[in-house]
């Protein structure tokens, strides 16, 4: 437990003290802020709400859900380079490794969200900061992380190479497109609206909007309701499914790790370079 926590904090510090990772921490928030900058004066339809104001909380929700992708990528990378095997070779290493990963991914995510949210608040008009429901923001965020990180860990154990990880990105982008992040989901055809509402991405976006937008903005949503109960239920279901499945999949993956497996992957990776 303690070693896992320490491991997470060390990795978190490292990810903010080296060039390439620091760049990736800032790249997305800065791109998103640029998009928001151009959207900030545009109205959404005839509702009188600014698109920028609608988009900022949605993007926060999406970014939080993207912790799933970084979890999955890091797991695959750590398996390829032997980090995971090292964890397996020390007592209680696997448990500590996982705790550390959750701490560093979730921690990194929170910092990323702050990088986006704080300048975003100055850029975008029409948010209801005075009456913002910070407690809603916190529970949606936490439940969202519990729902998405185990899924990320499962994806990371199923896809064995960095290359196949790239394949996850495509369906991920498709999910984002139908999740009402950049455009309210009610503007989509009915069947896409349905698919979008199965994903945690949509519900995290909805939760964020409910926390940061004025109460009148609810008219844009499905059924003109923030649907907190449904949000909790869907995210809760994902969380339960993930938490039940993740240990099984992770254990299976961990059991298969050995020195010769890592050596094999190293050979293949070196051949790719050569």
């Amino acid at each position: 437990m303690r070693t896992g926590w320490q491991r997470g904090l060390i990795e978190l510090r490292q990810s903010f003290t080296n060039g390439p990772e620091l760049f990736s921490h800032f790249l997305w928030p800065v791109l998103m802020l640029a998009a928001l900058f151009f959207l900030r004066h545009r109205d959404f339809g005839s509702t009188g709400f600014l698109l920028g104001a609608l988009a900022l909380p949605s993007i926060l929700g999406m970014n939080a859900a993207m912790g799933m992708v970084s979890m999955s990528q890091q797991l695959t990378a750590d398996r390829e380079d032997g980090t995971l095997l090292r964890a397996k070779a020390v007592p209680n290493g696997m448990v500590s490794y996982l705790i550390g990963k959750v701490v560093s991914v979730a921690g990194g995510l929170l910092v990323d969200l702050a990088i986006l949210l704080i300048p975003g608040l100055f850029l975008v008009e029409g948010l209801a900061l005075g009456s913002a429901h910070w407690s809603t923001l916190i529970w949606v965020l936490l439940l969202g992380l519990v729902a998405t990180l185990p899924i990320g860990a499962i994806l990371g154990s199923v896809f064995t190479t960095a290359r196949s990880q790239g394949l996850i990105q495509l369906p991920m982008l498709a999910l984002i497109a139908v999740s009402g992040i950049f455009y309210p989901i009610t503007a989509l055809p009915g069947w896409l609206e349905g698919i979008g509402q199965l994903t945690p991405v949509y519900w995290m976006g909805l939760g964020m909007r409910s926390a940061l937008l004025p109460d009148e903005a609810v008219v844009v949503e499905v059924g003109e309701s923030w649907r907190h109960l449904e949000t909790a239920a869907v995210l809760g279901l994902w969380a339960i499914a993930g938490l039940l499945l993740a240990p099984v999949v992770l254990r299976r993956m961990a059991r298969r790790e050995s020195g010769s497996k890592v050596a094999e992957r190293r050979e293949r990776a070196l051949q790719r370079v050569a």
Partner: protein
Amino acid sequence: MVLTVDGLRMRYGDREVLHDVTFEARPGEVLALLGPNGAGKSTTIEILEGFRLRSAGRVEVLGVDPAAGDERWRSRIGIVLQSWRDHGNWRVGELLHHLGSYYTPYQRAWPTGELLDAVGLTPYAGQKIKTLSGGQRRRLDVAIGIVGRPDVLFLDEPTTGFDPEARSEFHELVRGLAAEQGTTILLTTHDLDEASKLAHRILVLAAGRIIAAGSTAQLTELIAGEDEVRWSVDGQAFRKSTADSTAFVRELFATYGDAVSELEVRRVSLEDTYLALVREQA
């Protein structure tokens, strides 16, 4: 016995890679598993490490079946892995200190400073691991393997890719460990020279079987081949293989006297017999 392996078999699908491997190791003994690539060395060591499940046979490490080893058992085992680029952003001292902390519930881990000293990495303690040279990384690998003061240490092909200097430094380190810490060591290598320099006992593994075992001297005696004698008489060249070259040459001079010229006796080295043995099996 620290290691007991009895009738170990390993099968992948219908390909059997280990047939009936049997050996033991006493406390403090350094054992080398010597054999060509594909002989089953890595498979054997990974079964002992608890990283692979065997098909049949009895295996005990510190009295426990590795397939059922718990975390306390794990804390007494050291594994030297061939690192590549893992933990690249960690600093040398930081990683050793962190990994050492995994052992504190079980026993006293090696203090980071002393350990860095022992493997000669003190000047690099604050450096990021990805900036280390290959030789330095391998010393760090050893340090990680022994940070929990293990009773048994496993090293799989530890010196692959070493230059001669790094290799001899590494040998010194391993010998010191066995002598000063009383650690039982099992290493795999395809280099006979390395096996005979490091190990008290060598197990020759070929095609999934142990075909010879013993100290370097015992092996030489056990599998010593015949020496080759070449000579000429009256410009005609002869050659003969014989177990007792000294007696043969005495005989030669007694018979031909001064007519014998260009005499050459070539002792068969352990290397030659090892290669011959391995070739026989393949």
